[in-house]
């Protein structure tokens, strides 16, 4: 069976990271699972973790009284969920709900945040990786905002 360490070592998010930092991150990691429908975090709650999704699917949702839960995006296998633990005030801006049975590795962001403050090399390595994910998500969100399949556009 693959250990937590194996899984983390192979994940693209941590590729190229110095061995000593990897060890430190493994120390902050734990295996978690969520049943279909279960909330992983709720809007406004304190953000202390981030997740590497191993299997399953998570919906990021905003709730509106008129329209109910609106899914903004789904996060699937291999993707990273959550970066609010990195930025004050460390609160989740959305709900995250497992759409199906989801297995993930939870990383203790609060602990990592302190380590990053003490060791800026680690901080930079993690920031670089999160900045890349944020850039990808921002581009995807922009494309989503273009509403390309609307009738105002060519074909689609």
């Amino acid at each position, binding site marked *: 069976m693959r250990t937590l360490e194996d899984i983390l070592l192979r994940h693209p998010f941590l590729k190229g990271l110095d061995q000593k930092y990897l060890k430190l991150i493994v120390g902050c990691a734990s295996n978690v699972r969520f049943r279909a429908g279960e909330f992983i975090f709720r809007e406004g709650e304190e953000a202390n973790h981030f997740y590497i999704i191993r299997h399953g699917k998570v919906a990021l*949702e905003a709730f509106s009284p008129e329209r109910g839960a*609106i899914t903004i995006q789904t996060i*699937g296998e291999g993707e990273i969920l959550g970066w609010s633990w990195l930025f004050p005030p460390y609160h989740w801006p959305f709900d995250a709900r497992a759409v199906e049975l989801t297995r993930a590795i939870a990383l203790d962001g609060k602990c990592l945040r302190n380590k990053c403050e003490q060791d800026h090399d680690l901080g930079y390595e993690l920031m670089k990786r999160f900045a890349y994910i944020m850039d990808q998500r921002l581009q*995807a969100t922009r494309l989503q905002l273009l*509403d*390309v*399949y609307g009738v105002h556009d*060519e*074909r689609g």
Partner: protein
Amino acid sequence: MSTAFMMREADDRDPMVPRLFKVRRKWREARDIFTIELSPDEGTHPFSAGQFNMLYLFGTGEVPISISGDPARPEVLLHTIRTLGAVTRALQRLKTDDLVGVRGPFGNPWPVDEAEGGDVVLVAGGLGLAPLRPVLYTLLARRRSYGRIALLYGARKPEDLLFKRELERWRGRFDLDVEITVDIATGDWLGNVGVVTKLIPGVPFDPLSSVAMVCGPEVMMRFTVKELLRHGLAEERIFLSMERNMKCGLGLCGHCQFGPLFVCRDGPVFQYSRIKELFRVREI
């Protein structure tokens, strides 16, 4: 002499003269999209995946529409149409046994034969699934000639998904990866939410042997190409279907000009490497 007679006479001879087809059936696919089944009084209408017809309605006008049916069944001519303006609205109002003029098929096909022996990735956005459906029919009919086959399909909302029953069937197959995503959904949608390009990293394909066929709005195709290139697919292995306003469909009038190319004659399917410079230019 009646118009109908003149048209039948001219059948197969003059590509400028429509051939008469009867409406057999028509059904709704989504809010503003329907499929119409046409058949000629006699004979068939052979076509290749990716080709389009000019549909002519007397007194209203003529529009280019891709063929969305199975090339192996040329006796059933299907078009999947979004109701937009005068002609498509009039097509939507047709009843069983009404007549439609058909010119075509025009344009070059998707590279279904060239893709043999490798993996195939189909990326469809919105109505772009209609011109790709004939490809999927052909690939599945010749399943053993291909490696992995993936269909990645993005739509605006769950209600806008086309060919829902077929999508369900395709998703149930073990020899086909079907991934669907929508831009907007409420909590009862259990599928993916996000842009179609996000589905690309999730499908295992061998970039060296794969062919990608992409159809949808141009912006969606631009982002899709970028993502496919990032995953190692060569420009020559990416094919896109382009749309421009058309009149003759034969490379004569210049209406469908796309830089130095005519979409009706040189396309609508283009190898990305051939049009990449034009693709980036605005107002072409």
